[in-house]
């Protein structure tokens, strides 16, 4: 981890700076502890430089009380003395605030060039799980929030193959705040890595009884296929190459 460059002007004593370099040798970094926690597999590591850059924290000051202290806590910049003087209750509050704050910075970080790279590595490993839809062929998923304001809804998973939204498999992941990933992440990700956009499956499942398709379901499937063909035609008319990423996989 690179040495945090402190741009938090004024609030930091000089002795805290000195403390930092030797304390990190025997104490595990807060960020590492956070990432190692069970259920936090979706998060990536946010650079300390990014966290301490005030510009990146615009409008986050009001998100938690004692904002400066929380930032210092996250980058392990609080002196031992300060921590020792805190009551257990205060420490607990600080820890909760730090987690929330890290989540909010995380949402901003993962749509930066560096953050996208880190999430790309996680996506490649299918850290966010795979789509359970049969025709999606184990497509790796991407985390997404439905709101950018914390405390509204939990994280969901977006499948780039069927373009739909799924609930995480494990309840541990299902309880993470969606705002920690943000509403724009999958869109940014797929624009940054267009080669990661799969070709979309066109195969459908229609329930059958002894080989005969159910009429109502089959009719709907036909109508939906008609909508797809109309879109396909429109795209081809606009010279979009559908034989490559973002195109359609043939039904067979």
């Amino acid at each position, binding site marked *: 981890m690179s040495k945090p460059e402190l741009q938090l002007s004024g609030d930091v004593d000089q002795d805290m700076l000195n403390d930092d370099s030797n304390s990190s040798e025997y104490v595990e970094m807060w960020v590492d502890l956070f990432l190692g926690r069970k259920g936090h597999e979706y998060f990536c590591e946010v650079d300390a430089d990014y966290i301490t850059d005030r510009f990146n924290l615009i409008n986050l000051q009001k998100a938690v009380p004692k904002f400066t202290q929380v930032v210092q806590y996250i980058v392990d910049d609080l002196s031992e003395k300060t921590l020792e003087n805190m009551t257990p209750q205060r420490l607990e509050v600080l820890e909760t605030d730090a987690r929330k704050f890290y989540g909010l910075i995380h949402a901003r970080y993962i749509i930066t060039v560096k953050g996208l790279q880190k999430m790309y590595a996680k996506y490649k490993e299918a850290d966010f799980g795979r789509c*359970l*839809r*049969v*025709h999606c062929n184990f497509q790796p998923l991407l985390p997404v929030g439905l709101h950018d304001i914390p405390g509204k809804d939990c994280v*969901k998973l*977006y499948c*780039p*193959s*069927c*373009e*739909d*939204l*799924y*609930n995480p*498999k494990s309840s541990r992941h299902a309880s993470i705040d969606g705002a920690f990933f943000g*509403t*724009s992440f*999958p*869109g*940014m990700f*797929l*624009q940054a890595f*267009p080669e990661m*956009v799969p070709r*979309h499956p066109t195969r459908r*499942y*229609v*329930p*059958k*009884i*002894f*080989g005969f398709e*159910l009429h*109502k*379901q089959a*009719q*709907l*499937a*036909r*109508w*939906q*296929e*008609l*909508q*797809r*063909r*109309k*879109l396909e*035609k*429109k*795209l081809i008319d*606009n010279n*979009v190459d559908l034989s*490559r*990423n*973002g*195109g*359609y996989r043939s039904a067979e």
Partner: protein
Amino acid sequence: MSEYMDDRTPSSEEDSGTYDEWIPSFCSRFGHEYFCHVPTMFIEDDFNMTSLAQEVPHYRKALDLILDLEEVSGDEASGEMDVDGASNGASGKPPIVSRSIIEHAAEQLYGLIHARFILTKQGLQAMAEKFDHKQFGTCPRYFCNGMQLLPCGLSDTIGKSTVRLYCPSCQDLYLPQSSRFLCLEGAYWGTSFPGVFLKHFKELEDYVERKGKESYELRVFGFRINDQAVSGQRMKWLRQYPQTNEEWDEFAKCEFELPQA
């Protein structure tokens, strides 16, 4: 469930005291939560077993095992010629059928009987109870709001594919969430089950029709992505339902075939 438990008792009560009955112990095994109990009455009816003898090896012994009619000891040689006796006879020496082979055959046979039974009225009732208790899991799709799933196979012959789950709400097919169900044979539920289930319980279709038909569209900072971009929306049709009058007209034209543009 009690309704058909009663059916079984008269036939198996007298010999159930000493050892576990095969069907309940099979259904209560870990990972067998999708199976329901097939009453012995159903199995004892030869009509229901039509042509199963050709599909399962050691049919007789397997059937006896399922019905708890006879203890098959580990080293007992099969005296009678089974329907598929020819395959054993090829080796020349008297065929030795071990308990584990019979056990395996019994599982296959029970699975195929199960696929037939769940299409009967009684079977549908039993499966509906499991459905209500979400024993087949719920749809992972966010907008399906935890709709219960129905197990189904992609083929009616053994060994083709594992069990899949059908969501009546999004009308799509999913893999089981838990890995313990990933290796279950799909033919044990059969291809027709979700269809028959939907047609039998009309209220389910009505309920699904009344449900909200929301779908998701990817946005970046609140803006839509252009259709022509590589990451543009290409799958809207998959979750689309007719809304406007023109769309309903178009829908009517799709009644029997895809209209040519």
